[in-house]
């Protein structure tokens, strides 16, 4: 297989990591809304951790992006 198409395919596959991050973000915000519905007074102290968690999960997706960029450099 030629290296350019292979690297393009690899970059696309690296984007599959977004799925995991999507699941993670869904969990975070879904559980957060559930928690706030049960305990509205917890919204203040908890929302800080939600944003931190969201940023962590988002970073996981971005590792996939970095991987894609690395593949982009190796190909061609």
């Amino acid at each position, binding site marked *: 297989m030629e290296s350019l198409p292979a690297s393009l395919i690899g970059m696309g596959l690296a984007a599959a990591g977004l799925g995991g991050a999507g699941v993670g973000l869904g969990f975070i915000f879904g559980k957060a809304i559930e928690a706030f519905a049960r305990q509205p007074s917890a919204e203040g102290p908890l929302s800080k951790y939600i944003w931190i968690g969201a940023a962590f999960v988002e970073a996981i997706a971005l590792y996939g992006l970095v991987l894609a*960029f*690395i*593949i*982009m*450099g*190796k190909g*061609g």
Partner: protein
Amino acid sequence: MITEAYASAGAAGKEAAASGLPQFESSVFASQIFWTFVSFFILLMLLRKYVLPAIETILDARASRIADEIQKAEAGRKEAERLQANFQGQLVAARQTAAKMMEEARLDAARMKEQAHEELQQELTKKKNAALVEIEQAKHKAMEEVRTVAVELSMQVAEKLIVKSMSDEDASRMVQEALTNLGESQAQLH
């Protein structure tokens, strides 16, 4: 200069194309490592020298100011309480003084009334006694006068008797007359 730099860098970028992202180009790493350290420590020094002490000072000043104010307010409250207690005591004392003065005045008035009453009584008694003495004297004087009159009368009668050598009838009549006169004068006195 900058445009030239961009042009040359673009050429270099094309050459180093295999590295993909521009961030992975290792030719510019050394200077960035150096300047990251330098920039970070310059910022650290500047903030530590000029900014953080200022913020700390002002925060501490505010904290101590607030503590001071609270302390002052507490002291003020205590002072006010003390003053109030003081005032309360003074009020009680004044009330007691007033009550005492009232009592004294009442007693004074009673005593003065008593005294006046007594004096009046004495005066009245004295006047009454004086009047009684006067009456007695007048009575005495009147009796004295009556006696004098009687004596004079008897003297006159005796004179006439002696002068005229009057009869018995005459004599008894004259005595009767004299007695009647005396009785009249006595009636006049009473």
